[in-house]
């Protein structure tokens, strides 16, 4: 690809600066927001997006400035974009679980405490793996 070098430098620099700003905003949200459920938003969205920006900047740098095509960064960003929601979901589950156990250190968010489960069901955070699913050891 033939992009003039000044334009390539502008593209790479702006991607790095935008990505770094998003990463800082995510970490600032982690410090500033009052409860865990709100704090989850900063790292899971802003920081992941910022890292995606920096990885795109890296792809653009190696392609446009050095003329090498690299795909490692895309691998890293795909992996992060897949795993960030999973880890956020697990952290939220731990938080709800500990709220149920009345751990004093857990912060209650503006939505209040979670509603108790209906009859014949257990809390989703404490339920054993369902029959027939891969986590089910009793059925083996």
């Amino acid at each position, binding site marked *: 690809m033939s992009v003039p070098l000044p334009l390539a430098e502008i593209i790479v620099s702006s991607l*790095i*600066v935008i990505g770094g700003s998003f990463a*800082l905003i995510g970490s600032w949200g982690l410090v500033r927001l009052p409860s865990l459920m709100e*704090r989850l938003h900063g790292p899971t969205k802003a920081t992941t997006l910022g890292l995606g920006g920096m990885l795109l900047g890296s792809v653009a740098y190696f392609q446009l400035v050095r003329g090498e095509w690299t795909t490692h960064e895309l691998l890293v960003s795909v*992996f992060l974009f897949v795993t960030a929601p999973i880890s956020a979901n697990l952290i939220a589950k*731990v938080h709800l679980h500990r709220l149920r156990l009345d751990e004093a250190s857990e912060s209650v968010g503006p939505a209040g405490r979670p509603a108790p489960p209906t009859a014949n069901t257990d809390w989703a*955070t404490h339920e054993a793996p369902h029959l027939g699913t891969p986590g089910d050891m009793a059925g083996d």
Partner: protein
Amino acid sequence: MIEYALGFGFVVLGLALALNLWRLLKGPGVTDRILALDTMVINIIGIIVLAGIAGGSGSSFEAALLLAMVGFVGTVAYAKFLLRGDIIE
């Protein structure tokens, strides 16, 4: 121009790591600490990526990929331990 952007990125990510460290030390809950560790791993991956651009070699991305995987597995292990009292049931 890229040098200035890289300098900005390093400073900003270092600042973000300091903020994460503050949350890691202050807590108050265990979940806050897990979240802070997870965010620290993501920010460190960012620093590795920027170092790869600054060094001009593509060999640091294996480290970034490895750190992404280990960080995710670590977060899942913490969460599973707190949820079920065991990591591999």
